[in-house]
């Protein structure tokens, strides 16, 4: 993962988000419905990216735990848009060869009769390249 060129600048370019606007209020983390499942929480994504400490985020499963529900984006008083930062990190990870988080082989076991197509399309969009 060393060759990823995952710099804060890259994340800024992909996400369009300036992490330096953060005032460290933690409202994103307070709002996150998936807090429990994340090793690193939205405010940590913002802070780590702001400080160029990206290795930990990159290696963490937390990038695959964001629901993209935009609660953090909606409520952030500073318009930092943490979900966009998380998405940028996740994309940087899965854009590598062989880094897909969801494989077609896993699908038959994961679905049932009722599950809408939308769920599969969305999951593939978020977790694979």
């Amino acid at each position, binding site marked *: 993962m060393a060759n990823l060129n995952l710099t804060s600048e890259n994340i800024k*370019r*992909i*996400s*369009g988000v300036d992490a330096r606007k953060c005032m460290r209020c933690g409202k994103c983390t307070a709002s996150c*419905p*998936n807090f*429990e*499942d994340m090793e690193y929480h939205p405010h940590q994504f913002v802070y780590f990216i702001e400080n160029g400490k990206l290795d930990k985020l990159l290696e963490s499963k937390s990038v*695959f*735990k964001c*629901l*993209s*529900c*935009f*609660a953090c*984006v*909606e409520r952030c008083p500073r318009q930092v*848009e943490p*979900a*966009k930062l998380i*998405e*940028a990190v996740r*994309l940087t990870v899965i854009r590598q060869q062989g880094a897909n*988080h*969801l494989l077609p082989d896993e*699908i038959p076991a*994961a*679905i*049932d009769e*009722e*599950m*809408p*197509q*939308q*769920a*599969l*399309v*969305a*999951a*593939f*969009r*978020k*977790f694979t390249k």
Partner: protein
Amino acid sequence: MKYSYYPGCTLKTKAKDLDIYARSSAEALGVELVEVKEWQCCGGVYTTAQDEIATKLSAVRTLMSARDEGTDLVTVCAACHNVIKRVNDDMRNNEYVSTRANNYLQAEAPYAGETRVIHFLELLRDEIGFENIKKAVKNPISKKIAAYYGCLLLRPSSVMQMDNPENPSILEDFIKAIGATPVISAYRNECCGSYFAVTDKSIAKRNSSKFVDSSEKNGAEMILTACPLCLYNLKQNGGASVPVVYFTELLAEALGVK
């Protein structure tokens, strides 16, 4: 009143009810919905990355075809609505995305976000008017109903502009219009767990059940939604013991066209 209509793939398969009853209700209300020609899947989720152009193109094609028809575009699935409306906003306000999308599509007339995208609920509220729907109701639904918004209809509010993102009322007003009583539940605008239904059911379970529990505690006899995935999660993962239905189905029932 004539509109371009985008059903989306789930509405042709697992969520047929959402589509069929939208059409029959529209007809009953004197609204003509013309299905967009050769539409493609919206992509399911909007990609926020600046450099994701290809994932936005199918939505642009839909938006262009509505523009070429000269009509507003009506969506009914909350997820499709979210994707198409946000891509439309990019085409209008994000030069980086719009330039690249247009370069790729090479259309005769480049697309600059001209189409107005409205959700079926907005069609009911703003174009037809809940007052008129109330008048058209033949079979009032005398039930206590909890509305589930989820996240896609409301956020980000700066783009979606449907309602107050933290205190919405459009679904409750709809519930009143069809003769039912709205039940306000906690977490009605929080995520259901979404596509984690595929990869991690425990997440979907935890998120959906919060709303379901609150609704049932508040005495709801039914739960209403506008999204196939929300419906799935509330039912399968939220453990709802009351029926979870699409708002269009109830509308059709109230209008006597079910």
